[in-house]
């Protein structure tokens, strides 16, 4: 890591997309960026602990707010960068079919099996999934059948190995995983918007940080993000 590098603390699920964006930025004459991928929670606490991060990209709004409340994010630098969808997946050899709507028979689809999803209190995808199921009125019928995973990738694994007959994961993960098929897409209004916010840390002394955040909102970046299945929320600059 060179000294002038922009240090980006990003949610781990962004790795593929962000690596591509970083490469592109450098190729287009920007500086190099060094990304540290981990859980949003850990990254936020590290920034709180004085980490040398210039940019923070969180997987949900909560941890960004956590830092902003502590005045650790530069005022006005915060941008709602990316969006995502949550989907219901099943192992690829599954015959399950679902029409996701209010009061759909999720419990019946599960049978004896369990519904894999991220931790409903801790993992963003889990939180969105729970909200959606509540909104659709099926939470009560499946609450006892949830298998909460450490992160959304682990939930995906539970489905792809056939451990769980169904799971709720991000669309980005589901499309890229050959072991699962998408059974249904949750309506966007069934849960709070899925947002990946970005912000420059208050402690950043790197002049390129702002430029980097700006580049994340560029057309090229948009193309790269969308290639990984994200929706880009921020208007192209």
């Amino acid at each position, binding site marked *: 890591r060179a000294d002038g590098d922009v240090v980006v603390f990003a949610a781990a699920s962004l790795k593929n997309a962000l690596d591509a964006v970083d490469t592109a930025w450098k190729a287009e004459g920007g500086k190099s960026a060094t990304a540290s991928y981990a*859980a949003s*929670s850990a990254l*936020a606490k590290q920034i709180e602990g004085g980490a040398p991060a210039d940019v923070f990209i969180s997987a949900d709004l*909560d*941890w960004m*707010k*956590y830092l902003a409340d502590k005045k650790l994010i530069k005022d006005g630098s915060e941008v709602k960068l990316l969006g995502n969808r949550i989907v219901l997946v099943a192992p690829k050899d599954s015959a399950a079919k679902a029409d996701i709507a209010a009061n759909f028979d999720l419990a019946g689809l599960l049978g004896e099996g*369990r519904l*894999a999803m991220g*931790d409903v*209190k*801790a*993992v963003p995808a889990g939180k969105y999934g729970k909200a959606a199921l509540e909104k659709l009125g099926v939470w009560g019928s499946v609450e006892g059948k*949830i*298998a*909460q*995973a*450490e992160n959304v990738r*682990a*939930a995906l*694994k*539970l489905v792809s*190995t*056939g*451990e769980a007959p169904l799971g709720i994961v991000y669309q980005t993960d589901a499309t890229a995983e050959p072991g699962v098929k998408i059974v249904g897409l949750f309506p966007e209004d069934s849960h709070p918007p899925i947002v990946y916010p970005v912000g420059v840390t208050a402690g950043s002394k790197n002049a390129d940080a702002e430029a980097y955040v700006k580049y994340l909102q560029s057309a090229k970046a948009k193309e790269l993000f969308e290639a990984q299945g994200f929706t880009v929320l921020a208007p192209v600059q």
Partner: protein
Amino acid sequence: MLDLTPDEWNAVRLSIKVGLWAMAASLPFGIAIALLLARGKFWGKSLLNGVVHLPLVLPPVVTGYLLLLSFGRRGPIGSFLDEYFGIVFSFRWTGAALACAIMGFPLMVRAIRLSIEAVDRRLESAAGTLGASPLWVFLTVTLPLILPGVVAGMILSFAKAMGEFGATITFVSNIPGETQTLPSAIYTFTQVPGGDAGAMRLTLISIAISMIALVVSEIFARRIGQRLDAG
């Protein structure tokens, strides 16, 4: 501090249960493998040694995935055990115990092995001349002499189970009342802003349980030690 939610109480109970089972169930294997590694001379010993150490070397998440692949519902071992013995690990507390047992296994084996290697083999041959068959020699001489190592291995395994989280949650997920152990519950708290107090509370409970286990093991170990050498 102790006004826990029912789920948290469940996590405490489950953690103790999982820890004890992980410790107890891995003990015979731990002793057997330690014996094999300490005494055996066979092809593939290095390999066995390597495999035993794997859970230490691999990131816990990887161990969890590997468990999922082999002991899961569709995994070769998992489906075999299910079909012929009716043993199911996936999403059960038994799976958590399996994960903890495996994560603690290298620690247990190493402790027991160290003790076995320190045994004065002349005592074993003395027992042999008195008519004890190798099995009896093991039970009446070797085993009592390696008790310090066995106790150390057990406490390490239990303590590890109290802290194990990565492999467990990956393998059997985090189902309150079924597979949500203390570390999983703590993890959940650490992942939400403002969860620090809850995490701290559960952490202290976890520490308290481990402390009690430690103290008990130390008392036990001291007894053994006094018996073995008060010279």
